[in-house]
């Protein structure tokens, strides 16, 4: 065992939950150590190359690290498969390097689901220990510091804002957006320009967007995407107080007899165990892995794992419920200039609908229920994957001229626009993380087992929203439109597992995201969220991590710094 380093604060992970804490603490002059399992890749490593993603250059290797996923079969039994599904990005900055950057704020009612909408049987829904007001200044901070482009327009569910508009103008829009706006207005809906975690103008040493059209799932070559690395860690490290230790797979937090974390142990790239000392520790490994690390870290005061004295670690995991839909436009049925417009690749669709954030419709429920968001988006281009799917006709293999014609028609004669539906994945007793007793990763540590049960209410809400999306697609003139509801977990949009709350019996973290039974340990990724709201979570994870960074700063002031 090597003792390499001693920091004031040691952060495990380097993604969205980690970046704000590293940035703020380093800026305040504290010595920050970031332990990241992956390597450091930069803008110059990011090419629009489908092979990069497919060969897991930037992702964890299945053979080295896995998860077990259990899903309901529908007959009371559970399927079980070993998967690499929940690895978003095994590099500095984590999945935020590859995200699409849809950045919605939550709304006040997301913090008060029970008070606003009542209990739902079979769900573990709770109100948050903080309100929207407490997070609002931090949303504003993320928009400015991390860089969010957009335009505020009035609509019935617009959340309160302390600033009139986004600090950066909206990113360039695809002509389909105008078609969308017209159709929505005819339906008396409120089309919203979607805010993006993407710079529309250069800022803070980062370039603005290059509009290659290859965004979500691909690394950003210009630095425009609001990854934790480009937006925060690069600066934190340049300031001199932050050190990012790469290829450091943290496998255990050690606790002393008082129950405080005394050190973190990691395996370096040669498999050698290294120990890091610090005053305060922060875990931000992405929900499932954060729960796994706490459960694996047993000690005298924490025989069931840190934070788990009440058996809450890993519980109340949630994903984004919802679904997707498509509208296919046959180009030969459009005027030539319209067809040409629709084929343009580059600018963003950037549209959302939140008219049904609360569904007040007697045909679904006799009282208003929580609804969700529809995001209208482009699929990340992936021509090899698209083409490979075309070689089947029914269950027969297709080849020769018929195959060529099918491929050509797919690429040149129609255009498929997509929408994605986000609604709450209600927390429930059958959705949680535990340690798999049988499977180990390459370092001999039990892998995380994810049970991904869902509540039937989610399907009802999702179906309602998917149907609305299909109506919009038809109103836009799609020749074909359809949609599906998902009940499988979205592996890239997972949160919960260490929810925050005032009651240690039903939560793992206190209102400041400090572990109830370990007072120098914080968890700052999406684990803290009692529910995800009906939007993608990353903006909120960023905002909350900045909030927690302020609390840690207050704490640091009264603590003796390590010398």
């Amino acid at each position, binding site marked *: 065992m090597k003792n390499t380093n001693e920091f004031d604060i040691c952060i495990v992970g380097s993604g969205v939950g980690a970046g704000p804490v590293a940035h703020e603490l380093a800026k305040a002059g504290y010595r920050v150590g970031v332990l990241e399992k992956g390597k450091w890749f930069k803008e110059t*490593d990011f*090419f*629009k*190359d*489908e*092979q990069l*993603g*497919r*060969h897991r*250059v*930037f*992702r964890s290797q299945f053979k080295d690290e896995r998860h077990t996923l259990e*899903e309901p079969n529908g007959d009371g039994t559970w399927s079980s498969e*070993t998967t690499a*599904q929940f690895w*978003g990005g095994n590099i500095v900055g984590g999945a935020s390097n590859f995200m699409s950057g849809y950045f919605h704020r939550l709304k006040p009612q997301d913090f008060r689901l029970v008070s606003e909408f009542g209990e739902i049987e079979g769900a573990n829904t709770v109100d948050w220990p903080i309100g929207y007001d407490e997070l609002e200044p931090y949303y504003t901070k993320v928009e400015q510091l991390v860089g969010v482009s957009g335009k505020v327009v009035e609509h019935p569910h617009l959340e309160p804002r302390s600033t009139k508009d986004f600090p950066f103008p909206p990113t360039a829009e695809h002509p389909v957006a105008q078609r969308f706006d017209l159709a929505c207005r005819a339906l008396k809906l409120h089309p919203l320009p979607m805010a993006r975690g993407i710079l529309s103008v250069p800022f803070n040493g980062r370039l603005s967007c290059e509009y*290659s*059209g*290859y965004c*979500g*799932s*691909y690394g950003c*070559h210009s630095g425009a995407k609001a990854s934790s690395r480009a937006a925060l860690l690069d600066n934190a490290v340049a300031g001199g107080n932050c050190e990012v230790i790469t290829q450091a797979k943290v496998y255990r937090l050690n606790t002393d007899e008082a129950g405080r974390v005394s050190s973190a142990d990691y395996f370096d790239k040669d498999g050698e165990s290294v120990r890091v000392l610090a005053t305060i520790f922060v875990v931000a490994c992405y929900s499932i892995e954060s729960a796994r690390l706490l459960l694996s870290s047993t000690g005298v005061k924490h025989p069931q794992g840190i934070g788990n004295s009440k058996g809450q670690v890993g519980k109340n995991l949630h994903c984004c419920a919802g679904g*997707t839909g*498509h509208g296919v436009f046959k180009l030969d049925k459009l005027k030539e200039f319209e067809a040409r417009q629709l*084929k343009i*690749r580059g600018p963003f669709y950037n549209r959302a609908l939140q008219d049904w954030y609360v569904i007040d419709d007697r045909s679904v429920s006799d009282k208003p229920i929580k609804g969700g968001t529809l995001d209208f*988006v482009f*699929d*990340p281009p*992936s*021509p*090899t*994957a*698209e083409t*490979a*799917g075309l*070689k*089947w*006709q*029914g*269950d027969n293999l297709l*080849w*020769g*001229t018929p*195959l*060529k*014609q099918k491929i*050509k028609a797919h*690429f*040149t004669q129609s255009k498929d626009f*997509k929408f*994605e539906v986000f609604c709450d994945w209600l927390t429930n007793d059958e959705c949680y993380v535990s340690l798999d007793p049988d499977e180990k990763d390459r370092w001999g540590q039990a892998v995380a087992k994810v049970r991904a049960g869902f509540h039937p209410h989610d399907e009802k809400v999702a179906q309602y929203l998917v149907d609305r999306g299909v109506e919009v697609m038809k109103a836009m003139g799609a020749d074909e439109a*359809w949609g*599906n509801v*998902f009940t*499988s*977990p979205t592996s*890239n949009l997972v949160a919960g597992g260490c929810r925050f709350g005032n009651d240690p019996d039903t939560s793992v973290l206190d209102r400041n995201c400090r572990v109830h039974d370990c007072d120098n340990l914080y968890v700052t990724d999406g684990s803290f969220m009692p529910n995800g709201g009906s939007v*993608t979570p990353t903006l909120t994870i960023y905002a909350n991590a900045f909030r927690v960074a302020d609390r840690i700063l207050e704490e640091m002031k009264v603590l003796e710094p390590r010398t």
Partner: protein
Amino acid sequence: MLNKSLLEKGILEKSQLGNKTALFPNDKGLTSAGAAKREHGSIKAEFVSAYNSGLNRRAFLRQTGAAAVLLGLLGAKPSAVIAEEAEDKVENDRGLEDFNAHSRGVVEAVQLQLFPDDGDGPSAKQLNGFQYLSWALDDPENVAEGDKAFILKGVGWLEEQSKATQGESFIKLSLIQQDTVMKQISQTRAGENWLSLLLYYLLESLTLDPVYGGNPDGIGWKWLEHQPGFPQPVKGKTYLDFS
């Protein structure tokens, strides 16, 4: 040699698939969780994209169509490993591991059937289909999956079938006869796997970046009016150069 039990197995699985496929109206209107799970792209469904799904690259790619989704779920095709399990093992003797002039000729002829020079769009030959295939088969991941041995083995099956039913080597047949033989072998699971695997690589040579050896000068993209991303990968920065 394709034995009878393999053939029966193929038929059995096809009928199971037929039942399941009827539930789904078209390629994309999938309703089951499993099917939805395989839908790729976008942030919502990203959990199913290639690197995230826990599937290997080819398994993912073959699962992007409806039938393929179901085939994939049932573990039917087009995998060398599965065909291997179903039938006799692909031998690992060195002799089988390289293309000789004859096997190359057969594979090139099959590729031209799969993607013919029909006056609309590039043919397999113009796509550098065979060169791309030989390069890809030396990729360590594909080597580990036994693709080259499987493809060479399939050449043997095709030749046997060709001689048994047409009295000649595949290379000597007319285009129509070649198509007949390919249809015959596609009736078996291993045969369909084999063709599907060849198609898989061929379609990569249609749409992958030219840096990987297929799609010379982007002819595949031009035909499909496809706009590549920016910046395109360059020599020295392909996926093989990151370790």
